[in-house]
Every structure is written in C-alpha cells, then in structure tokens.
C-alpha cells in the first residue's frame, strides 16, 4: 500500500499523477464531474452519483479488470484506466440511439419471439448489448493472484466512521487490540488498534454452531486481494447512506446523493457544481448548506422545512420550496434545470441548476446483520430494516454487536454507542441509559409523496433501477399483470439485480409497490440480502480456498 509519491497512471491515453490515498475519481474531479460510462440498456450518459463505492456511476476498467469503481480505486504506477460500455466513446455513443428508438423500453420478456428463424440473430444482438464491459483480460487476473490477508483479533470492528472509531478507542483503553476495517482508502490510524483501510467486508456468514467457534468475515482489499478476519466478537458500524429518489431523468449526470456531493467537495478538488438544488430539509441538508452553501441555489423539500434549516438557508440567501414534488431534470449530458411542483396540484416551477443533491432520507447499511442471521425490525418511519438491539448494542446473535447509524441510533447517541458496546464487550460496567433511536416509527413522509408523484404527467425517463435500466413503467406493468411482492417483481423486471445490490432502487420500490398493491411496505417483502455485500473479485475469493476450515455448510 506504500506508493511512491511521483507515480503516474493512464486514463484515455493521458497520464495523471497518482497520489497516495487518492482515488482515480479524486484525480479526474479536478476537471469537473466526469461522465465515465453509459448505462447498460439505453446507453444513457452516467456520472458518479454516490461517491462511496455503492452505485454504478463510476465504473472503469483498470489494467483489463472490468467494473472497478473509480471512487474507490487508488491507482498505482503505470495503471491503465479505461472507460466501458460506450461505442465509439463515452462522449459520443452510437448505441445511445436505443434511448430514442425505444421510448417505452425494450421488452425482453415478450419481444423477440417471432419469427422463429430470427431467434439466433436476436440472441446474438441482445447478448452483445448486455453486460457492462468487456470480459477481463488474461493479464488482469494474473496480477491479482496474491496471497490473502488473514488476521484474527478478539474484537473486529467493521466500519471506521465516528462510532466505529469511538468503539476502537474505548476497546484499546480497556486493553484490547481490535482490528478496525473500512472501505475507504484514507482512514486515520487509531493508536493501539490494527486499522485495515481499503478493505471491504463482503460476507459475514452465521457463526458455526460448534462451541467456541468464531465469526469468519470474508472480504477483499483494493487492488483485489482476499481478506479473512476471524474474531469471536464482531461490532458492525457500517453506518448509513443517502438514498436516491425517483423522478423524470433521475439518472442524469449531476444528480448526486449527499454522500457524493459532500465527498467530492471534501476531496480537495473544486466542488463539481456551482448552483445545486438541494432536495431534503433535515440534519443532512444543513450539513450540505454548512459545507457547500455557496454552491447551492435552492432548497426543495417534500414536506415542511424545519425552522433550523429555514434559518441557515435564509442566512445564506437560498430560496426555499417546501412541500414540493421534484418532477424531472432537464439537460443533455448534464443537469441544467429541474421542474418542481407544489404538492396538492400546485403550480410548477423551473429551477436552473447544475446539480441535484439528494439528502431527503438516510438508510442503514444493514447487510452484514442479515447475513449473520440477526433478527431485524421494520421501521416505517425511515422505510427500512434495522437489527433488533438491546440497550448495550447486542443483536440477537451472540457476539454480534450493532452501533452507530447502521444500528438505528442517531446523533450523539450514535457516536456514544461505541463506548457502550466496548463496555459490554469487555464486561465493563458503564452506567447504561436507553439509547436514542431513530424516530422509532410513524408514517413515512415519502409514501404520501410518491402517491402524488406517480400521478403527475411524466416527462423524461423514470428509471426505477439505474444499474439495470429498469423503468418505472415496467414495474407498474408487473403489478398490473398480477404479480405481487418485491421478490417476484425483482425476478420479473430485473430491478435490484445490478451492481449496487439493490441499495438504491429497492427501498423506493418497496414504497411504490406498497402503493400499487395497497398494503404496507413491510408486507410487500423482505429484501433478501444475498452475499456478497459488494461485488467481490473471484481471485480474491479463490485465495481464501483452503484458508477457511472447510466447515459444513450450515
């Protein structure tokens, strides 16, 4: 992981400085927000959206390895970075004609059945259009064939955000030596803890039932190397992320989540926008206004705007649009304006902007809890599942602990929960007061919002699942055809089967299906979280074969 400071990497035939701890995207952002690739079906231009390695907005090919996330990959000397799935180039892609030719979408379920003699040709054409990029090159895999990184500790902490770090420090203070891992490349050290940066946790299988058995966490580092950490206690502090939102041409470059906007701005490069429309009005919106207020031209909210936010925005002279629907974006390969509409059949307004920043809802990263078999609880207020945790942060699985926003605690309590769990893990005796949980329940603001939104006349493409280019209309047809439940809709339409593992589309799909099917979101389905949490290179997994004790598959 030690890079010489003057190394260089190649992108589209030009060389760029590589700096330690700085990703490919950090480097490219100096020239503005790049549109790096095209979408799978309709070849629409796509740009970085989340900035935290969870979407499909920044996929590039590195040294012949497909689908590497530019916002996560720290380039090394001589790395060749190329773009994918555009012909002849990412800026001008002839296949974008599909976007115009198929205004109602390409129906691969019913179409291409006749005449029979055309079948082989249909197969050839459709296969060639599918897929994000070219298959890996031979050399790419050879480069990745290295020994895995294997470690063990009495406590493993997944996630080095605020609460994970607090837990690590508290454990060190109790004389423990935890491993603290995080996907980010730039993780500050914690004295006394073993910090593994650029390390993604992919799979936390249930602990084997044999007495004394520990958890085996499977993961990988960048550049791809297998990771195995064995620990009897695992603290999951994977945090939360800003959700996406459905509207017309919601995939246009310049539409960002709060994570993306803040991350890009904090990366030290000039902010990749100058007059953004912020959507949302809570704590997260205030963080954006604090850090990026000069670059915000309007704040739009689905409901009322809390007084604190009104104060901050007014001080910065930012106009406010409470109780509004975000209807559509305009522009070509970049957002130029949005159309909003006052709720309750109000009038519509066009706001010029060069970005949309989504901060209306934050969702927990709960996949590891699901995988390890922890009991989960649906909370209508945020519209997502959280682990059932005791006051000390214990989940229903012995040895598995939940802290921070992934566990459903908020604010200062979320940070403090690290100390609390450290105390419980080490058997210490901190005085325990009840944790402050996420607004425990109540109705979801977005449910009523979407109820209105789906009835307005539609402009642009409404992309329910950007990774796979699944349209809202396709989801609606599925319901009309009599199929119910998110699991069936997924299999029927392909929604949620792309590289983001359903993180961005499924939470909204639950709400939309609940409206269409006329039953609460929790009945529409439990979103199964199939491993791995993030796409994990085969070479990294292969390196772990034989390292893991061949436990019986239980």
């Amino acid at each position, binding site marked *: 992981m030690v890079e010489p400071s003057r190394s260089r990497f190649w992108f589209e035939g030009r060389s760029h400085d590589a700096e330690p701890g700085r990703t490919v995207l950090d480097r490219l952002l100096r020239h503005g927000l790049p549109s790096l690739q095209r979408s799978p079906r309709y070849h629409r231009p796509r740009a970085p959206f989340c900035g935290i390695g969870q979407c499909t907005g920044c996929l590039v090919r590195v040294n012949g390895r497909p689908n590497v996330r530019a916002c996560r990959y720290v380039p090394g000397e001589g790395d060749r970075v190329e773009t994918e799935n555009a012909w002849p180039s990412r800026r001008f892609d002839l296949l974008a004609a599909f976007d115009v030719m198929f205004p109602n979408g390409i129906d691969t379920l019913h179409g291409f059945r006749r005449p029979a003699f055309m079948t082989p040709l249909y197969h050839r054409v459709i296969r060639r259009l599918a897929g994000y990029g070219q298959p890996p090159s031979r050399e790419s895999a050879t480069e990745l064939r290295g020994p895995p990184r294997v470690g063990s500790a009495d406590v493993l902490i997944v996630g080095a955000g605020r609460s994970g770090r607090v837990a690590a420090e508290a454990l060190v203070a109790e004389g423990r030596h935890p491993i603290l891992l995080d996907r980010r490349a730039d993780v500050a050290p914690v004295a006394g803890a073993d910090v593994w940066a650029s390390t993604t946790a992919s*799979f936390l299988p249930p602990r084997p039932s044999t007495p004394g058995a520990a958890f085996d966490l499977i993961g990988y580092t960048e550049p791809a190397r297998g990771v195995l950490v064995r620990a009897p206690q695992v603290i999951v502090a994977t945090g939360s992320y800003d959700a996406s939102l459905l509207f017309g041409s919601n995939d246009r470059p310049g539409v960002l989540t709060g994570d993306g906007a803040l991350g890009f701005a904090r990366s030290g490069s000039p902010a990749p926008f100058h007059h953004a429309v912020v959507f949302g009005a809570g704590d997260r919106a205030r963080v954006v206004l604090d850090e990026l207020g000069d670059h915000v031209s309007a704040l739009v909210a689905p409901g009322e705007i809390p007084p604190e936010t009104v104060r901050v925005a007014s001080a910065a002279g930012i106009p406010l649009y409470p109780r509004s629907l975000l209807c559509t974006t305009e522009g070509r390969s970049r957002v130029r304006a949005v159309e909003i509409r006052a709720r309750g059949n109000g009038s519509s307004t066009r706001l010029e902007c060069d970005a949309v920043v989504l901060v209306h809802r934050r969702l927990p990263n709960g996949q590891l809890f699901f995988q390890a078999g922890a009991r989960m609880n649906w909370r209508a207020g945020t519209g997502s599942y959280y682990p059932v945790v005791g006051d000390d942060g214990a989940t229903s699985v012995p040895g598995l602990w939940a802290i921070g926003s992934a566990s459903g605690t908020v604010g200062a309590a979320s940070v403090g929960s690290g100390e609390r769990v450290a105390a419980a893990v080490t058997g210490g005796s901190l005085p325990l007061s009840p944790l402050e949980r996420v607004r425990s329940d109540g109705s979801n603001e977005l449910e009523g919002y979407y109820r209105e939104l789906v009835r307005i006349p539609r402009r642009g493409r409404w992309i329910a699942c950007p990774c796979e280019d699944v349209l809202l209309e396709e989801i609606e047809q599925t319901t009309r055809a009599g199929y119910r439940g998110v699991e069936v809709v997924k299999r029927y339409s392909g929604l949620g089967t792309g590289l983001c593992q359903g993180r961005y589309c499924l939470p909204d799909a639950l709400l939309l299906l609940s409206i269409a099917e006329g039953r609460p979101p929790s009945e529409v389905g439990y979103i199964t979280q199939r491993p791995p949490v993030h796409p994990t290179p085969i*070479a990294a997994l292969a390196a772990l074969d034989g390292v893991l004790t061949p436990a019986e598959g239980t």
Partner: protein
Amino acid sequence: MSAPARSNYSVAIVGAGIIGLYTAYHLARAGTGPILVVDRGFLSSGASGRNGGGVRQQWETRATLRLARESVAAYRRFGREFGYNIWFRQSGYLFLAETDAELARLRPVHDLVRSEGLDSRVLDADGVRRLVDGIAPGAAVGGTYLGTDGTLYPFPALWGLYEAVRALDVEVALGVEVLGVTTADGRVTGLATSRGPVTASRVVNAAGGWSGDLSRAAGLDVPNHATRHEILATEPMKPFLDPMVVRPSDGLYFSQTMRGEIVGGLTLPHAPGTGGGMSSSAAFLPRMAASLSRLVPRLGSLGVLRAWSGYYDDTPDGFPIIGEDLRCPGFFHANGFGGHGFMLAPSATRRIARAVMGEATDLDPGLFGPGRFTGAARPAAVERLQLG
C-alpha cells in the same frame, strides 16, 4: 395470500414450481375439472426460481435422453405458445475430461446420444480451447459436446405458465401452506392447508425439495432426499462463452447468460434435509471461485455479484418418481427431479398429467414408478450423469 376460492377440486397440486404449473397446464388443456395449485411461497420461490437454466440431452440412459429431447422441442416453441421469451439458446453443453480415463468414461454417453440421431462430438484439447476462451493450458484433454443442448431463463417460463394456467381457469393459491394430505379408507380425499381443508380426490405432490416431507407426512415411506446446492452469478459482461461447461471431477458447471453474467455452481458436501435454509455457506464462495478460476484464469478479476442456494430433490437411482402411489390411491408423485427438473419438465409433466387422468404412459415403471423402491423391487437401472 389468497385462500382457495372453492372447497372442492378435481385435482389439487402441491407446489407452483415448473413441475406443478406445467402439470396443471396439461391437465387443464385436457379438461379435467377444477384444478388447484397451492404453494406456500411466492411464485419462483422454490428451485424453479433458483437454478442454472441448463437444458441438455446428453444422458446415460435412453429413457432420460428421450424425455430431455422432447423437452428441448417444447422449449423451442415456448415463446410462441406462452407469450414469454425464455431466451432458450442452443449453444451447447460441454463435458470436460481432465484425463484420458475421464474421456473414456464419457464415451458411452456420446455413443448413446449419437445412436439417438443427435450430433454429439468428441473434442480434443484444441476443440475444447476453441469453445472456452481462456481455458487454462492442460486443464482438459478433451470432452464431449452437443450443440443443440443449451440454456434458458427460468423466470419467464414460470410467468408464461402461470398466466396460461390462470387463463385456463386453474386456481393458483400462493402463500398457502399444505399441512397434510387427508384420506378416508386409505384413499386421498384432499388437503389440509393453512387456509382450511380442501377436497380433491387426486393430489399431485410436486413439492420439489420438500416432496419427501409431504409424502412422509401422508404416511408414505419414500426415498426422496433433499440436498442443498449453492450457485452464484458474476457481474455481467459482453459475450465470451457460448456453451454450458461441466467439469465432472468436482461438479463445476457454468454458463454465460443472455444478460452476460457467469452463472454456475459446484458440488459441495452438504447435510441432507430441508432444515438448512436457503442462504449461502462460508465454504461455497472460495471453493467455487477457486474451481472456476483454476479452469478459466481470466475470470479471476471479475466480481461475484450474488450467491444463493436451493434444494435438489434426489432419488437413489437418479430417476424422477412419476405416477400414482398404490399404497395411497389418489396420491400422485411428480418429484425426485434432482438437479434436472427444469430441463425435463415439459415432457415429464405430460406423462404426469396422463397418469393423473388414469391413462397409460410410455414410462417404464421399473425406472420411474413409485413402486420401484418398495418390497423386493430393485431399481432397474441407474442414471448416474447427475452433474450440471
């Protein structure tokens, strides 16, 4: 969650997988009176929504081969018959041989396939390399290949059948669990379900991996045993592999789907029984990744997108169990399809429907009949080619 609409049916089918739905389709077309299909899960929740979509005609016995060949013809028509495109792509099945001895073991299959008029080929190492771009040098001395085998998309097959049977007035009750089979004087009278009793003089056990449980709940001693099989899909990429590839030594199989993903699995020793849930194990991902990248090293830098598992419903001799169980008149078996129920469904269910209607079928009872395991009877043959 729809309760059965009436209380009296001519036939009640347990399981809305490919076998249950296809059986309902044949029965409804023949006009056998009101038909009910019950499933406790959602559509596609069983093995029919969890498989690799492989369809092959290379088998060790003529009986299985002929069922498979008839099914291939049916799947070719499927899109025009049912309105859904299942993307049945006949781009071959390749059985790899790592040694000359393995190749010799594949020979009899090849000879049988050819004797049925299908164009099976024996390939040498070069022939294999031409079909599997990037195969590791020395990974195979050769193999057998049949170009008209192929792969399909299981889901649209289920949608097409579901809509077709509903259009034929078959009732499909989803989210309803069958708790047991009711009998009077040793004859079937109906089902006990989580939504109350259902009357039907004929019950079809098409419960896939759970069919052994259902038969045993009805007091029938059956040899079915469920085994969990895991499978994964990678990130989708542009086409590079045409055939389904099978390596008998470790049971590895994989193909590239229409969407561009590599989908495949291998055989792991798993505890039998349906208690293990349908999640993935810690052992599978590294094992599968190692096996796959040993064979095709370039796949090493591709990401695994998701892994899942499902149940095979295995029988001791590798043949499905089809027909009425004479120990309990009115109870029909449509199960024991192991890892091949999808590819055999169209033809096998045609015979199941016949049996339910009391008509004779061309199936050898010594190979397929439920009675073949009872008493002194011994299976007449064994279908050993169970991989992929």
